[in-house]
Every structure is written in structure tokens, then in C-alpha cells.
């Protein structure tokens, strides 16, 4: 008997047809009624608040107040010259500022 030769093209075509034949099978039409039954049992959807969206809404509401604050701060800074009190800052970190300066000057 002649041995069978594997002919992928032939087999593939046949199997492809068999695959697509499956969609021609008749199915009942009651199943979509079951879908609505289940959906009605589940009830209305619980829509969880989207945090990002809420944050966005919140931020936009504050925008006018923020802008006003920035403008007012800029006006205040322009009117009153901003000079940081270095001595106050220095005293926070160094107890005796003079001693440290002498130490730095003398090679001890």
C-alpha cells in the first residue's frame, strides 16, 4: 500500500474548513434572556470613584485660589525686600561663631 505523505497544505485547508464550519451550528436563542435575568439580579453597577479623576477635579477647584495666593505673595515680596537674616540662621547652628573663625585662621 502506498504510504501516506504528510501534506501540510491539504490537511491545513481541511482543518481550517472544519474550524469555520463550527460557527454554522445552530444555537438556541433563549440564552440572552438568561443574561438579562442575571444582569437584573446583579442590579445597577456600583461605580467606584476614580481617585485620579476626583483629585483632578479637586485640584482644578483650588486653582483660582492658588493663583491669587501666588500673585499676592509676589506683590508682598516685591514691596518688602526679602533679605534673610543670616545671623539668626548662623546662631542656630554655631554656638560661638567667633571661636570657629579663629580656629580656621590659626593653624591649630
Amino acid at each position, binding site marked *: *500500500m*502506498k*504510504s*501516506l*505523505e*504528510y*501534506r*501540510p*497544505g*491539504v*490537511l*491545513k*485547508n*481541511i*482543518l*481550517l*474548513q*472544519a*474550524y*469555520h*464550519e*463550527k*460557527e454554522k*451550528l445552530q*444555537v*438556541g436563542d433563549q*440564552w*440572552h434572556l*438568561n*443574561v*438579562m435575568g*442575571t*444582569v*437584573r439580579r*446583579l*442590579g*445597577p*453597577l456600583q*461605580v*467606584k470613584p476614580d481617585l485620579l479623576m476626583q483629585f483632578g477635579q479637586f485640584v482644578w477647584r483650588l486653582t483660582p485660589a492658588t493663583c491669587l495666593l501666588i500673585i499676592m505673595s509676589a506683590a508682598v515680596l516685591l514691596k518688602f525686600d526679602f533679605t534673610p537674616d543670616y545671623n539668626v540662621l548662623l546662631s542656630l547652628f554655631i554656638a560661638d561663631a567667633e571661636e570657629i573663625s579663629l580656629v580656621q585662621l590659626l593653624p591649630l
Partner: protein
Amino acid sequence: MYHQFCIDVPKRVAYSVYMQNDTHKPGDADIVRQVVGGDVNAFELLVKRHQALVMRIVQKHLPYSEVEETAQDVFIRAYRSLPAFRGSSDFSHWLSAIAVRTCYDYWRKAYRTREIPLSTLTDRHQQWLEKVMSAQSEAVTAPEGYRSEAGEVLDWALARLSAEDRMVIELFYFEGLSVKEAAKLLGWSVANVKVRSFRARKKLEKTLKSLISKKDRSSAHEIS
């Protein structure tokens, strides 16, 4: 092919586009908004519009006995996921992805619980195979009277693949989708689909070759 299923909207015409062009009927996105807003009954419109699409997808991927139940599952999942539908893609495309993934979940569960019917092939299938392999031309249709054998051999061969390989074979080789389209439907990476499609094809070829060589050996045995 999947162009019937409205997967790639720019190239193929979506079923829902016809509905949207009808000025008397609301578009899918409008209905989704209504449902999310609390009008549960509006979902029925979406079910009626897209039931044929879902049914065609599920019928191709699953055994006949599981089709109706799985189609229901698809719509229930879609209903639950509606708040996540942003309208950036076509609704039918979004629903198709849910249908494909539901089919994949079915096979994963079936393989895990070993509920795959590993049927053996009978003489009837061997005869069919002989008829097919001895055909002169590659452009053949299933031999008359052997249509069910072709489907059974297909099921037999696919049952020997994993759930992942099966889905890739069906989407890529049988449906003719691109790697990108298949990856999008399954929710996998393109690389994953590419590698799987190559390996799955090799496995399927090996399975079918073994079927033919088994037939060959049994014929030789009969002669001797």
C-alpha cells in the same frame, strides 16, 4: 475571518458603526453611559446588537455543549466591566476581547481540572485521513460524508495542545489575525504571542504527522 468581528475598526467595518449611523438608534457608547448611570435594562440593547458577534467567537473556540453558557458569561463579564469601558476603542472590539479571554479561561480551567476529552481516533477517522492525504490538489474541501470526521480530528489535535497554544493557533493560524491583533485580544505581549505561535504550530504539525505515520504503520502491518 475576524474582519466579520469588527476587530480592526479603521480597516474593517464595525457592526456598531451601522447602528451608530442610524440617527434613530443610540450608539454603543451612549448605551454604556445609560447602563453605568443605573439603567440596567438598557444593557439588553447591547446584548441584542452584539449577541451574534459573541456567539460566532465562542462557537469557534469552544465545544458545542459549552457555547451558550460561555456566551452568557461573556455578557455578564462585560456588564461588570462596563465602568472600565472608556470609549477609546470600539465597543465591539472591547467585547470581542472579553469573549476571547473568556474562551481562554474556559480552556485553562478545563486543562487544570483535566476535563479535556482526549478521544481516540477510530477507523472512520483513519479512512477520512487516507482520503484527504491522497487528494491530488491542495485546494480540497472535506470529502463528502466526512465533515464531522474533520471536526473531530481537529478537536483531537487541539486537545493535545496547552490552553495558551490552542488559543494562539486558533487566532493566528485559523482566524488569520496578526500577531498584534491576537496579542491585543488575549491581553498578552506581542513577543509572547510570536514565540507561542511558532512553538504551537510545530507541536500541532508533530501531532498531525504522528497521526499519519500511525496510519502508515498500521497499513504496513496489515499487509505483512
